Structure formats: structure tokens, C-alpha cells
């Protein structure tokens, strides 16, 4: 199988690797770069568990080809915590019991980060829209929505 070179930053670190042409970013992240925080759920673009940020835009790694990401800045949930300190969103999810089985959680966190990066003070409606492409089969969504709103409030307090 033909191999192609890919080079991008993953959570701020320069990465380069030879990969099989035509594989998805999801497969490359998990199997070539060892980032298991990105989950493969439906592989149809329906569940959102594979969500990543590509150059700051929320995208689905199961529907992207890795080689189309050359030169991009990719962010995953694995890069959220810094020096062992949880990201405010992770802390809010933990404290608000917004994760049960946890499979959807990485995608939810990245979708929430995409929202807060561009809108630090979202309304509940904004939050619902932001996670509209992410499916959770066990939490009922309400703890997730509340956790994201809580993280936004905490951010605004710390920024004041």
C-alpha cells in the first residue's frame, strides 16, 4: 500500500509520520500517533465521539483523511490538561458528574472547547447547539450542558 508523509502539530507538538494513503485522521491519530483520547463510534459523522479541532475548527476525524491535514494544528482531548492540571471543562465534567460510561466525553469536551474558544459566555441555547452533533447514551445531556455552563462561568470569574 502506498505510504505518504504527513506532518502536523498535535496538541502543540510537531509530529511527522509515514501513513497509508487514504486512511482517516481518526485511524492515524489512534494507530500512528498513539492518541487514544479520540474515539471511533459510528464512523458515519453522526455520534461526534471522534471530534477534534483542526486549525481551531471543530471537525470529525472519522470523515477526514489524515493527509489532508498536512500543516494543520490538531487539538484533541489528550491535550486539554496542562502539567497535570485539568482543563476547566474537564474539572466541571468531573465535579458535575457529566460523564458516565465516558465514551462520548472526549468529543463532548472538544465540542465544548470549540464553543468556549469563540464564545466565552454562551447561553444554554448556544451550548445545546454546540453539542448538537454529539451523542450521549447515558447522561441524558443535562449534566453535560450544566458542566459546560459551569466551566464558562468559572472562566469568566477567573478572567475578571
Amino acid at each position, binding site marked *: 500500500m502506498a505510504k505518504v508523509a504527513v506532518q502536523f502539530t498535535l496538541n502543540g507538538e510537531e509530529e511527522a509520520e509515514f501513513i497509508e*494513503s487514504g486512511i482517516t485522521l481518526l485511524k492515524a491519530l489512534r494507530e500512528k500517533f498513539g492518541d487514544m483520547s479520540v474515539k471511533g463510534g459510528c464512523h458515519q459523522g453522526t455520534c461526534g465521539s471522534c471530534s477534534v479541532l483542526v486549525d481551531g475548527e471543530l471537525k*470529525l476525524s472519522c*470523515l477526514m483523511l489524515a493527509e*489532508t491535514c498536512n500543516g494543520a494544528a490538531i487539538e484533541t482531548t489528550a491535550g486539554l490538561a496542562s502539567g497535570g492540571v485539568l482543563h476547566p471543562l474537564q474539572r466541571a465534567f468531573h465535579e458535575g458528574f457529566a460523564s458516565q460510561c465516558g465514551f462520548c466525553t472526549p468529543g463532548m469536551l472538544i465540542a465544548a472547547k470549540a464553543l468556549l474558544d469563540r464564545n466565552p459566555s454562551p447561553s444554554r441555547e448556544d451550548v445545546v447547539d454546540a453539542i448538537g452533533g454529539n451523542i450521549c447514551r447515558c447522561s441524558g445531556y443535562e449534566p453535560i450542558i450544566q458542566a459546560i455552563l459551569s466551566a464558562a462561568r468559572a472562566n469568566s470569574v477567573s478572567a475578571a
Partner: protein
Amino acid sequence: MALTLQSFPTTDAAGAALAADGASRYLGGGTLVVRQANEGDPSFSTYVRTTDPALSAITIEGGRATLGASVTMGRIISEGRLACVADATKSVGGPAIRNMATVGGNLYAPAPYGDFAVALLALEATVEISDGPVPLEAFLAARHTTYARQVLKSVSFALPRAGSLRFLKVSRVKPKGVSVVTIAAILEEKDGMMTSARVAYGCMADRPIRAQAVEAALAGKPRTADGIRDALTVATDGTSPITDAVASAWYRSQVLPVHLARLLLAEQGQGRN
């Protein structure tokens, strides 16, 4: 099956590669074709794409908008001058899908997808391909035959007055689910009468279609419950709704007139999705 990606700098070069290899598929945003690959579709082995920047351009001049085929739903939403079609683009998927799904891909999306194409049909958009412009209605009718292996260049349409595009996507899953039925309408009104109407449906056939009988029945009538009554009686004329996991063809036919009435009678710009 192993898949490979071929990238070309121009649309014409990508089009030629697509035409030369029957086992290739055009890769736009990936939401259709990579999904097909993930599902194990054995009918293709090569992705073809172009990095032509012209396909990502948005041009608005002379009251007309031209959207490159690679323009995403997300970019349309963030382009203030295209607020008139924002409701339709926001109805497509969640934020991640909207950052990937392209205008060109939406025109090929099978029902129940392709909601933006329904709005474009009501706007009487024109599709630009290598051979020249094609009316969207004609393009959609032949999208899986004559135009199946085309690389679209752009889609253009006359900008509607603010709020004049009525758009409704009915879904059973909130906030974002696939469509039971999607309706878009542009109504021209004068002295309390509808002088013309352009109405398009999604999910009421294998592709977005115009509701010609409805359009004819609305012309010359007031936009009131009485005025739209005749249009509602012919709401399903010419339709052949899809059946899927969300709704049967029968169900779609039953609920269409109800939602059509709500859309037509809503105050301007108050369609919902």
C-alpha cells in the same frame, strides 16, 4: 479495500482524473464519500480532490451570491452578507458537520440529507460545471446520471430580501436530527396578495423537488388560512416521499400539508428548523 488520495491543483485536472477512472470518487468535505468508504463501499478505490482556491470563494455582487462548491455550511453561517440563508445552513448537522459539509456535496446528498439544496431550489439557483451553467432543478434531476462524475465549480443565486426565504426542517430528534420533511419557500406579495410563489420540498422524493401545483395554487391568493386552502389540497401532488428509519412515505405525506400551512402562514422569516 485500500484507498488512495489524488490531489490536483485545478478543478479541470481533478475533473479529468475523475472522468478517466471509474473507480474514483470526488472528495469534497468528506461527509458523504468518506462515510461511504467507512461503510465498506467496494465501488471505489481512489479519492480525487482539488486544492483549487476558486472553489472556496464567496462572491457577492450585483445582488447575486456565488458560492464556490467547497464553501462549507459553517462559512456561510459566519458570512454576514449571507444571513438570508443562515436558517437553511444551520439546519445541516451539528457544528462539526457544518465545518466540513460543502455546498457542492449538499447537492449530491441523498434524502433525507441535503437540506440546503432545498433552499437553493426555492432560490432558483444555478450550478456552474465545466460545461457552463445548469439550472439547479435540472441538475438535481440528473445528478446521478449526466452529472454524476462532475466536479462542481460553484452555485449562484439572487439574494432574497432579508427574511423572505421561509425555511422549515421538521425533525423528530432535537436539536439536530435528520429531516422528516424540509420545506423552503419564497413568496412575493403585493397589496395583500401572493403574486408568485416558489416552494421546494426535501424528503418528498429521492431529491429536492419544486412543488409546482402548490406554487400555481398560491399565485393570486391572499396569504391567509382561506387563501392557502387550495394549495394544501394539492400539497402532495407530484411527490414520491422516501421511507426510512425516521418516517414512512405515508407519514411524510400525511404531515406535509400541516407543516406547509405553518410555514406559509408564519410571519415573515419565522420559519423554524
